[in-house]
């Protein structure tokens, strides 16, 4: 006869097993194979496909472009989202709930739809070029398919995401500290810089890590808009499908995976502490 404790343990393990086996067989095992493929070369195991990312000009350029784009997007998004989250928490205005819902909707869009929104705004017959053509006779800002368009597209998905992660931290700000600073004669700008920003800094670092991870691994958005620039995820796709370089593509996938995993981890640990 097995004891009751034993039976309890068996029951708990039995409930866990289907989920664990599924993740093991359809995620861990494939990821291990992906890692092995990335280390495969004709002369035996080597890290040549990783060093290639840093040495092959086309790869290196793509890596640096992607990092540069993601850093720029992260910085601008943090500035905008700080404002937006403070407005959402502290300002009262009619239809606030509806407004919040509207600016959160892009979170449910696939990257390709985000790209399309940029085409609608800045494409050949986009809203901005059409309106400026009517007003000034010349279409302005036809930038959907340029680096600027890609930057705006990344802002489009980053701003809602970062704003929503920051709202909670803004809620927790102690307004009495700001009132104290104001009553001691500090201007709103000084209060913001010396009181609000330091209190928000863990949240900013954490949200920034999330934003960077999301930008680095974005694929659909860039795929819809990309013409001549190729961010790392898109390069990975073309290396795999067009050039049949599955080892190089796997190395890029692992690189992207490690980067996003690390930054997602930073987002969660710093976010929990803050």
């Amino acid at each position, binding site marked *: 006869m097995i004891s009751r404790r034993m039976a*309890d343990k068996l029951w708990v*393990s039995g*409930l*866990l097993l*289907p*989920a*664990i086996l*599924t*993740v093991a067989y*359809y*995620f861990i*095992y*494939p*990821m291990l194979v*992906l890692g092995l493929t990335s280390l495969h070369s004709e002369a035996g195991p080597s890290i040549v496909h990783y060093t290639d990312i840093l040495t092959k000009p086309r790869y290196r350029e793509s890596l640096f472009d992607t990092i540069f784009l993601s850093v720029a997007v992260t910085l601008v998004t943090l500035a*905008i989202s700080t*404002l*937006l989250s403070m407005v959402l928490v502290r300002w009262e205005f009619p239809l606030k709930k509806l407004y*919040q*819902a*509207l600016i959160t*909707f892009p*979170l*449910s869009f*696939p*990257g*390709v*739809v985000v790209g*399309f*929104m*940029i085409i*609608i*705004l800045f*494409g050949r*017959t986009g*809203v901005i070029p*059409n309106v400026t053509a*009517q007003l000034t006779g010349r279409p302005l800002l036809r930038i959907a398919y340029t680096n600027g368009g890609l930057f705006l597209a*990344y802002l*489009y998905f980053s*701003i809602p995401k970062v704003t929503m992660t920051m709202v909670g931290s803004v809620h927790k700000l102690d307004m009495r500290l700001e009132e104290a600073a104001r009553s001691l004669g500090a201007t*709103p*700008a000084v209060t913001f810089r010396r009181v609000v920003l330091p209190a928000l800094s863990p949240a900013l670092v954490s949200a920034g890590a999330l934003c960077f*991870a*999301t930008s680095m*691994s974005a*694929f*659909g958005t860039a795929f*819809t808009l990309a013409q001549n620039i190729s961010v790392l*995820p898109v390069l*990975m*796709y073309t290396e795999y499908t067009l050039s049949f370089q599955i080892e190089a*593509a*796997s190395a890029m*996938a692992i690189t*992207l*995976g490690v980067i*996003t995993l690390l930054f*997602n*981890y930073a987002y969660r640990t710093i976010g929990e502490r803050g």
Partner: protein
Amino acid sequence: MRRWGPGRFLVLFVVVLVSAFLIVPVFISIIGSFSGYWGLTMFEKGLTLRWYAYVWENYSHTIKFSVIIAAATVMIDILLGVPAAYALSKGHSRWSTGLEELLSVPVAIPGIAIALALIQTHNYLSGSWLFIVVGHVIFTMPLMLRAVTAALRTAKLAAMEEAAASLGAGRCTRLIRVVVPNVRDAIIAGSLMVLTMSLGEFNLTFFLYTPLTMTMPVGLYESYASLRLEIGSAYTTLFLLFTLPLMALIQYLGSEKVEGRGF
């Protein structure tokens, strides 16, 4: 505090600009889907429903397919995720948090990396709708797990379970008749989240689909590549009809964080 200095107006200006940037194109896309010809103006050739007919004729299969995939994904997530969350809440805290972390890893890995890995190991599934379901389950199960685990942590189930046990309820009965009803709201919230994620998933699906297993976002990409804004708009509007009510419901239920979505 409520004085409107120049700083406050600057903030207002930025907020209005950014909000317009996020919201306006969605409405333009809905309006433009009725445009007879979208050139320099939208309605010089009148209003039409032609593009909806076109999209329905060419892409209705992607809509049906996406709904089937999303429904299957939710069901599998519930069947795998709810028992696992319950087991994790019973287990020793040290290894159960470790296991929870492990089961949550896929959500932090880019979809394209998971897809490239799946292609190398499970390509025999290629062409089957199951291939896409597998990808979506791996990618969404952490969301279900997290939603239910959080609810289990706050629900005071131990006493209720003991009471049920003392009345002779077995383990399975307790799980189905006591635990599940108490975390029903979390299961519903998790399901809505998973539905939204699955319906909108592109990055992973794009690597796994074949012409016979095309989902809505993949079809959307194809329609955008044709560079016809009217068609893209009509299709996008149909897509929004599916996802926006889900998003509204998620917000109504109070979970505003949508995590783990890659763009």
